[in-house]
């Protein structure tokens, strides 16, 4: 291979590029990213950056002496598999011998009633989103957050911490539904204790405006929430629209084999939020994981596999891991708690807010969620990876 193109210049793209060089690739290496910024770490955007304890500069990744050509602020808009070219901004073409797709996710559009034509409406996915939100929050008094998932909850905690009145609205009966009802209830308590108002089982019905400024959100139960800043945090969706007519199989991620190679394509590999890869944790079902560590781990493996002869390629077998920081508590999740059929206490106590809950599917440990107990997590992650039986768990 003489020329490898990496589409997506965030964590996965960067780790892939670094791995390609570390593993001896000495041809041309091109990184294409649609944001104008060099790679930066996204998790602080909804945490430390909003809270004011980190700056945009603190989020930038060290690029070291990486030998690569950067095309930033350039969007890939198509892929021509026959000519082996990426189409850029619907005009230019960039030829490749090997292609690594790492285009990540964007914020999922609000699925409810039309959002108001107001400059007070924000999403939170990119650095520029965060910087705009921070500026708006500096003068806002009442923040309404549509969506009680991780981004919504983290933003609520951070904005409450800088003195804003915050309300979260979610159609679900508890926040952070990915953790299940019991832990969702613990999260709800945390927010309530800190003065964040939770409006659950309801959604926005209409918005009140004065000119182009938002003044209130009306909910489906009749509640009127004063608002001068609206944050829409309703999840993420994979950036695969540019591949729609490419011939690659989308589900909506890019369907890959276990080695992260795009099914049906030569020398095209995927990593991060866009990659749909069979997982042995769920009996070979495809899994698309939108977590920071997955982007890093999968990119390293996908890049190594791209350079390896077919027989030497390794399957992706990482245990998913993500974390959240809210009100000074580190919440950590490993494995696939949402795929479990049973849950049980492994460490600590829920009342004491320091605990680890185990999740099993059949006889096997499939996930753990920890609140404020980081030291026990690595051991359980290893046991999830080993598909340990619950009856034989080694407690730490």
């Amino acid at each position, binding site marked *: 291979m003489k020329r490898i193109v990496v589409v997506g210049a965030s964590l996965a793209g960067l*780790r892939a590029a*670094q791995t390609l060089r*570390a593993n001896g690739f000495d041809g041309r290496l091109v990184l294409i990213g649609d944001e104008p910024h060099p790679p930066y*770490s996204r*998790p602080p955007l909804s945490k430390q950056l909003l809270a004011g304890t980190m700056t945009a500069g603190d989020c930038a*990744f*060290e690029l070291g002496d990486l030998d690569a050509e950067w095309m930033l602020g350039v969007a890939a808009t198509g892929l021509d598999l026959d000519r082996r070219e990426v189409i850029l901004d619907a005009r230019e073409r960039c030829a490749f011998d090997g292609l690594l797709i790492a285009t990540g996710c964007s914020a999922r559009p609000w699925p409810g009633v039309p959002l108001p034509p107001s400059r007070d409406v924000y999403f939170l996915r990119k650095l520029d989103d965060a910087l705009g939100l921070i500026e708006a929050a500096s003068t806002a008094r009442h923040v309404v957050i549509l969506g009680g998932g991780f981004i919504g909850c983290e933003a609520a905690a951070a904005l409450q911490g800088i003195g804003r009145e915050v309300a979260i609205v979610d159609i679900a009966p508890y926040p952070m539904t990915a953790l299940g009802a019991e832990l969702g209830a613990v999260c709800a308590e945390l927010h309530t204790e800190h003065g964040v108002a939770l409006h659950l089982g309801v959604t926005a019905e209409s918005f009140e405006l004065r000119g182009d400024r938002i003044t209130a959100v009306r909910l489906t139960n009749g509640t009127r929430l004063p608002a001068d800043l609206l944050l829409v945090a309703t999840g993420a969706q994979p950036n695969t629209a540019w591949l729609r007519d490419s011939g690659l199989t989308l589900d909506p991620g890019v369907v890959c084999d276990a080695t992260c190679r795009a099914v049906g394509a030569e020398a095209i590999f995927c990593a991060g939020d866009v990659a749909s890869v069979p997982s042995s944790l769920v009996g070979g079902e495809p899994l698309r994981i939108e977590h*920071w*560590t997955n982007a*890093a*781990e999968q990119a*390293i493996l996908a890049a190594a596999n791209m350079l390896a002869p077919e027989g030497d390629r390794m399957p992706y077998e990482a*245990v998913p*891991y993500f*974390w959240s920081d809210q009100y000074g508590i*580190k919440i*950590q999740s490993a494995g696939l708690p949402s795929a479990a059929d049973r849950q049980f206490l492994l460490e600590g106590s829920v009342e004491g807010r320091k605990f680890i809950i185990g999740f099993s599917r059949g006889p096997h440990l499939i996930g753990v969620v920890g609140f404020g*107990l*980081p*030291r026990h*997590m*690595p051991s359980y*992650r*290893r046991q999830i990876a080993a598909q340990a039986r619950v009856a034989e768990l080694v407690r730490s």
Partner: protein
Amino acid sequence: MKVKVDLQLCESHGECCFVAPEVFTLDDNDELVWTEEPEEALRAKVVQAAAVCPTRAITVEG
């Protein structure tokens, strides 16, 4: 090979402990403890641990 960890950045995620348990562990106070000069055979694991650290607290020298 020398392993440096910026404990100001470390948030005890335990990624490194998962990837390279021979080198990194968390103590009873959730603080990271690590071998500063691990044997060369562990280089690949240590480099991987640095690459997947969510707070970019680990650097590998030499």
